[in-house]
């Protein structure tokens, strides 16, 4: 029963995907839709194949910025969350600025950052980090505060130190929240990287997938645009699946969100 369910979860979306691609191909052929308006899947696949070296280079560039931004966001965001929970005063003083960084559209800030920071890769990474960091800060802060009051009393009754309470109680309690933050942040890091590339790309200073989309648009190479778009989407999905696997590995034994349903 369980195996059937897993098979269904894999097979059903694939069947839908193949059907959509087939309809798309047939529809474009039947309606004689010109490639420069809307390319057929086969043309996109051809473009993906022939332009592969360029695309791979662009993918690598985008991925590097995304991963760098994600790692920095996780490290810095977690540290900020730890500082926040140390004192309510620190949190109320600084939290509004974390919100400010989150709500200001990155498209509006990116030109400034790109202008100020000469190195393109660093400026792109900063942009992506700025958006990715917020869910890490807010989720980890909530997680570190969401401790079973009974367990907290129990630790205090057993004369546990602040450090012991942090390591043995607060961090494990925060883990599900932190991992949910990671899931959101991984997606946001990619979005941040792509948006920043667009902004930098209009100034001719970028090499990532978004830059490829921009360039392909200028040259009316629509299949290449789609191919680059496809790679961005696949990257996003892979990042997401990686986070799901990480969550499963860390929480699978005990947390309701990750425990496989029984019976």
């Amino acid at each position, binding site marked *: 029963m369980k195996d059937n369910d897993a098979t269904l979860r894999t097979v059903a979306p694939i069947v839908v995907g193949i059907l959509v691609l087939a309809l798309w191909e047939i529809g474009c052929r039947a309606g004689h839709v010109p490639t420069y308006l809307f390319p057929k899947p086969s043309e996109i696949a051809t473009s993906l194949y022939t332009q592969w070296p360029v695309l791979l280079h662009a993918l690598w560039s985008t991925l590097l910025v995304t991963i760098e931004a994600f790692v920095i966001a996780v490290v810095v965001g977690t540290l900020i969350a730890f500082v926040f929970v140390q004192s309510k005063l620190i949190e109320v003083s600084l939290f509004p600025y974390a919100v400010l960084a989150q709500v200001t559209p990155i498209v509006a800030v990116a030109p400034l950052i790109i202008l100020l920071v000469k190195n393109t890769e660093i400026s792109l990474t900063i942009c992506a980090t700025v958006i990715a960091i917020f869910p890490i800060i807010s989720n980890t802060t909530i997680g570190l505060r969401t401790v079973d009051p009974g367990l907290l009393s129990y630790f205090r009754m057993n004369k546990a130190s602040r450090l012991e309470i942090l390591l043995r*109680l607060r961090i*494990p309690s925060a883990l599900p929240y932190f991992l949910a933050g990671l899931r959101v942040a991984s997606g946001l890091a990619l979005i941040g990287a792509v948006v920043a590339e667009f902004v930098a790309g209009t100034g001719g200073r970028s090499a990532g997938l978004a830059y490829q989309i921009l360039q392909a648009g200028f040259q009316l190479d629509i299949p290449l645009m789609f191919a680059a778009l496809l790679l961005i989407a696949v990257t996003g999905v892979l990042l997401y699946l990686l986070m799901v696997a990480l969550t499963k590995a860390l929480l699978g034994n*005990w*947390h309701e969100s990750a425990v496989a349903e029984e019976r």
Partner: protein
Amino acid sequence: MIETERTGDGTNAQPPATGEPVVALSQVDKVFANGMRGLEPIDLRILPGEFVSLIGPSGCGKSTLLKLIANLIQPTSGEIRWWGGDFDHVGTAGRRLSFVFQDPTLMPWARVGANVRLPLELAGTPSSEIASRVAAALAHVGLTKFEQHYPRQLSGGMRMRTSIARSLVTNPDVLLMDEPFGALDEFTRNKLDDDLVRLSIENHLTTVFVTYSLYEAVFLSTRVVVMAAHPGRIFQEFVVDEPPARSEEFRTSTRFAQQCRALSEILTAAAHASGNDEIA
């Protein structure tokens, strides 16, 4: 208002508990931060080997009293002495307190064994000693086979037994229990009550037990402290006329029924004597 009623023929069936009180409260009261009076000044002495239940209508301060004894909260005035001293020397050999909450309060991310091990690790017990003591505590509550399970894989009763194993692993002298079996069904509760009687005797425990159930109070206790509410105070004490080693036979006996009835009458009187929220 405080009086002690001797039941049966007026004598204690077990030898009266003697010695220096384990916990002694003198004129202890508690006024909460919001100005509400939780407890009138009360005196209470818990002697070694006693099983004392605190029972009474809601708002009578029985949980507050237990938390005062556990030093989880501080009295507004009055004095609490543990083994004749202050709380600083509680926790040394022969002077250990253990608290069992209403909920099992287990760490969901840790296996049963790791949960039971926690107080030993926090106390810095040598690791060579930990394994054998955890095994002994789990054997006491019949959970040896479940050491590698996670709390979510256990039933409510088994989680509570894990919690009890965790409190026994430190070899406590005093067990403080705040309605520990309140959330369990009656069958499981009776089973755990039986276990508790056995564990108390085997481990020479002194126990203070908060409960809503007068049947549970009569079955477990050597002495029942009946409290009244608004303001919280000790209304009357009731000594259970039965040797401490009790079994299913006691639960179904007429002696049990008679004492439940007597306690029930005291409880009804306590409920009548309980005021409203107004401050006297």
